[in-house]
């Protein structure tokens, strides 16, 4: 399967750049400079230095003794939770901030759901001395409070978004509106594998460092480069595409993405785009999304702010149609259970998003020789309030 979109940014029928004319020069400029810079020695050097000395890469590939025993297989955790700022999101913003600097942009904007992308963006903006505005749904600001404080402490302006579902979809709308009104000096730093071309490809490539490292680490730790399974959670799809990237053409490896079922796929309170969505256009790309019979985009629902999004990246939509990646729906309850389990079995508190990937483990028929890599996209510090409220009531 081709890992690159065509020259118009399409993966088969998905992708493209569905932006108002005012943003056309922006995406064109970005496509041009991105393709020019991505292979340049200077860029790759700067990126590698930052990934190593600032982000803390490579992140460990931890053999999870507790999970391995419980599921009767060789389970590894790719520790993106140990990246600086606590999630995989920093991998992508390092690449994009270097690009923004190269393009001579003067101000950075970003959308955020869980706040992890907002924190990552605020972090590199502090590092590179860019003014930074982060759009965040008012509901998400409440449920991910610690990240709001972090962004402000880093010097970013956090702009509450009151429209619609007050979550990631609306934060993205608001960021696009700001971009429309300020196309000349503003760089829009998108946080997931979504948006108009070239963002989905760019984010996928910046995140592909995850699967590149897994290949090397497994070779030295397991004696084989390709695992039997890679599991990752999927909101817009950046950590998943990064964890899958180098295995997409490895027929031995089953790739499984966990999307958020929320209260359940049939309940109407869900973010399970692949399960209940259909083809449409959202936030500048053609992909699959959750919509009504009249083509109105539906508000998603998930306990996890980072997965609470009614769309999914276009590359994922193409991988689904090609039957290359399986998309499983994980409910709020299943994710919460998985989070509490891994905390006790392996001494790791995962982000609620990542807990969705862990919740896939009990659904697999594993053999003792199977090598399973779960991408632990982030740590659970930001979710302590949610965990605490659950723990007090129902969890073992």
């Amino acid at each position, binding site marked *: 399967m081709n890992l690159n979109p065509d020259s118009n940014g399409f993966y088969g029928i998905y992708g493209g750049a569905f932006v108002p*004319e*005012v943003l056309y020069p922006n995406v064109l400029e970005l496509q041009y400079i991105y393709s020019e810079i991505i292979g340049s020695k200077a860029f790759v050097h700067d990126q590698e230095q930052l990934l190593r000395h600032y982000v803390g890469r490579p992140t460990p590939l931890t053999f999870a003794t507790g999970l391995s025993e419980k599921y009767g297989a060789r389970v590894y955790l790719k520790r993106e939770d140990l990246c600086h700022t606590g999630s995989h999101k920093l991998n992508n913003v390092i690449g994009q901030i270097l690009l923004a600097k190269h393009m001579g942009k003067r101000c950075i904007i970003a959308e955020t759901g869980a706040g992890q992308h907002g924190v990552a963006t605020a972090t590199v903006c502090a590092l590179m001395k860019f003014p930074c505005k982060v759009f965040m749904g008012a509901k998400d600001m409440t449920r991910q409070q610690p990240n709001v404080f972090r962004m402000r402490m880093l010097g970013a302006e956090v702009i509450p978004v009151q429209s619609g579902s007050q979550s990631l979809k609306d934060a993205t709308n608001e960021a696009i509106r700001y971009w429309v009104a300020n196309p000349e000096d503003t760089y829009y730093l998108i946080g997931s594998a979504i948006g108009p071309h070239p963002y989905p490809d760019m984010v996928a490539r910046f995140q592909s460092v995850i699967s590149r490292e897994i290949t090397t680490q497994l070779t030295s730790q397991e004696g084989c480069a390709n695992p039997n399974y890679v599991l990752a959670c999927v909101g817009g799809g950046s950590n998943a595409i990064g964890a899958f990237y180098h295995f997409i053409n490895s027929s031995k490896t089953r790739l499984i993405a966990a999307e958020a079922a929320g209260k359940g796929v049939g309940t109407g309170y869900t973010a399970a785009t692949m399960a209940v969505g*259909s*083809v449409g*256009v959202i936030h500048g790309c053609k992909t699959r999304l959750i919509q009504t019979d009249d083509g109105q985009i539906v508000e998603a629902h998930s306990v996890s702010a980072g997965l609470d999004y009614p769309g999914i990246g276009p590359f994922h939509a193409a991988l689904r149609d090609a039957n290359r990646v399986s998309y499983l729906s994980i409910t709020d309850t299943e994710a919460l259970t998985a989070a509490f389990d891994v905390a006790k079995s392996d001494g790791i508190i995962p982000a609620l998003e990542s807990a969705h990937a862990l919740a896939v483990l009990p659904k697999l028929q594993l053999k003792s020789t199977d090598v399973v890599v779960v991408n632990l996209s982030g740590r659970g510090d930001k979710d302590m309030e949610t965990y605490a409220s659950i723990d007090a009531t129902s969890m073992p």
Partner: protein
Amino acid sequence: MIDNRVFREKRRELLSVYFPAGYPELNSLPDIVMALDGEADIIEIGIPFSDPVADGTVIQAANTRALANGITLNTIFAQLRYVMDRIATPVFLMGYLNPILHYGVEPFCQQVASLGISGVIIPDLPLDYYEQNLKSIFTSNGVNVVFMVAPNTPNERIRRIDSVSCPFIYAMSSFAVTGGNALLTATHASYLERLKGLELRNPVLVGFGIGAPDTLAFANSNANGAIVGTAFVNQLSNAATSTEAVRALRIQLGLDINHKN
């Protein structure tokens, strides 16, 4: 029957007025259209969408309200079927791409054509995608598409847009979403001057932030006319009747209130 003579014959000080279908009430459309008939040169009806990324807060809120009222594309077509024979002013539909794609481009075009709609404006439909994938469907059904230009659109691209757009070009006044206040600076005048200098085949109507005598005069003197949206939506939410809203809008724009075009 499509009657687009104003674009050829009057071609100056054209006034296009926008409002979203289903607003303020589900069935307001026919009444508003009849009130605008003869008071505006062009009527632009918005197809409400959940995620209007080119719109400011006023039109966003009107879209949300219209959707809560239960508006759908089929309802809009039914309302238009009733009203189109009763008016003489050209009607355009303006809507984001997703609801149109979901309805099906072919059936959408068939409806639009059978209703005698003068054209459609789809702000998030890129020119290139249109030309490669959708143009044949629109043209075989005889449906016009109006494209937009912005202050940062290069001349060669404006010429390409001019060759595809029909029967006018929608010029975004400045870098803004709808509902701001168009800036009357030398930069903006020179952008419109640049458009004029290209001697385009299409008349150019300026939209986004036009809602006062000065911004209207600016659009009229630097282009072929203006598009007014947010100002009219605000009047619709304040006025008791559609006729009063139209009258209030004309006063707000400094236009003669007894005038019939």
